[in-house]
């Protein structure tokens, strides 16, 4: 099976920003423009995460989402501040194919995963994990890496799978935005723990980082943000490099 190469837009409306350790933001461009650029470069999918809506306790801002969706003939996942079935519905109507949830499910009510899977199908429900290492384990964080939950990542991923999540977006608070490589151990453990697809994000600094991640942890997909935003490499570069390294990707 092809490993999916996914472009991830971390959005603080109205801009795509580049967080470092989920803090300190730099403006990188408009979501619709970057989405179109990465689509043209050959991205298999696009993730759009409003990284401040949970923290500010407001609903995700719809401006920009419909505009971004209409440009794309690939799957589009949207997240940020989702806390009801109605929010899921609204995002699908804005053009999302999948909805990403974290904070509400962790802090308030994990049953929202069951409900959403029953209504929209598991394939449309993505659970975002923000993991931070603590001794020999990893703990789930929320609100963009700011708030500890006390939940153990390996237990939580099994629980969300049981509840009907169709996919996991795995982010690491430790490696995010630093461009020094992924948290390989974390990725390996999570991929092994569940039977649903795992998309790994946080840490791509070079083509080799991506190759090493795929070869050692076998995620279903890799989500790339910073590396693309600086125009150092394109999605096409990544895919060509992986293909030449013997890794299956969709060209």
């Amino acid at each position, binding site marked *: 099976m*092809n490993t999916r190469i996914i472009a991830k837009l971390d959005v603080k409306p109205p801009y795509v920003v580049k967080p470092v350790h989920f803090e300190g933001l730099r403006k990188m461009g408009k979501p619709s423009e970057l989405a179109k650029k990465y689509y043209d470069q050959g991205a298999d999918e696009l993730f759009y995460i409003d990284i401040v809506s949970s923290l500010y306790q407001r609903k995700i801002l719809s401006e920009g989402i419909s505009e971004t969706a209409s440009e794309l*003939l690939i*799957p589009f996942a949207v997240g940020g501040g989702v806390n009801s079935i109605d929010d899921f519905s609204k995002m699908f109507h804005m053009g999302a194919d999948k909805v990403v949830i974290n904070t509400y499910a962790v802090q308030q009510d994990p049953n929202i995963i069951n409900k959403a899977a*029953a*209504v*929209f199908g598991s394939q449309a429900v993505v659970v975002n994990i923000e993991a931070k290492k603590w001794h020999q384990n990893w703990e789930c964080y929320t609100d963009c890496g700011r708030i500890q939950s006390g939940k153990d990542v390996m237990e939580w991923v099994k629980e969300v799978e049981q509840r009907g999540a169709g996919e996991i977006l795995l982010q690491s608070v430790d490696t995010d935005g630093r461009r020094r490589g992924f948290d390989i151990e974390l990725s390996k453990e999570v991929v092994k723990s569940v039977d649903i*697809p795992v998309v790994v994000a946080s840490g791509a600094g070079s083509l080799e980082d991506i190759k090493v991640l795929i070869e050692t942890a076998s995620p*279903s997909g890799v989500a790339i943000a910073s590396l693309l935003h600086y125009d150092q490499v394109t999605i096409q570069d990544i895919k060509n490099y992986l293909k030449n390294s013997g890794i299956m990707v969709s060209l």
Partner: protein
Amino acid sequence: MSNIIGIVNYGISGNIHSVKNAIERAGGDTLIINSTSDFGDVDKIVIPGVGSFKGAMQGLENDGFIDLLKEFDKPILGICLGMQILSEIGFEFGKTKGLGLLNAEVKPILCNEKIPHMGFNKIQVVHSNKVLKGLEAEEFYFMHSYEVVNYTDISALTKYGNHDFVSAIHKGNLYGVQFHPEKSREAGIKLLSNFIQLKVN
């Protein structure tokens, strides 16, 4: 002659807008079918696929669409779940009766790989049809946990792990694809264009 593509809107779920956008990009005129009276205004029907087998059949029943779909004698294209519900029976969230237009059952994908099967994957054409014409070597986007089990109307298969499942069907006026043409770049637009250009008898 008119050539309006009706898109069946059933229930609360789903992104039918992406299907509408893609059909329009492929050059088709669309009409969202929201009520039984809309059926008379369309020349072809696309059944998009979002939600679960059970939820979809309930939605179609609540809207009074089941008999109208069964009786529709012009081309129908089922996408993903929209193809699955053409079958006799589905097993998602319990056993549910489908539209029964296809001699098939819908069961969990039979393999040891990660489920749902998500991503671009190849199709291997077994019996080509007009909708798949020129697309034999293309990859399409899949996003599903269930598969159609059918032996008589297979147009294409797709390999996931060591398992081949049915990725496209054709029977008379019925066409079905397990993948999402509206999420499959230009290849998907070409497929929709093929469907739009089918001649109606």
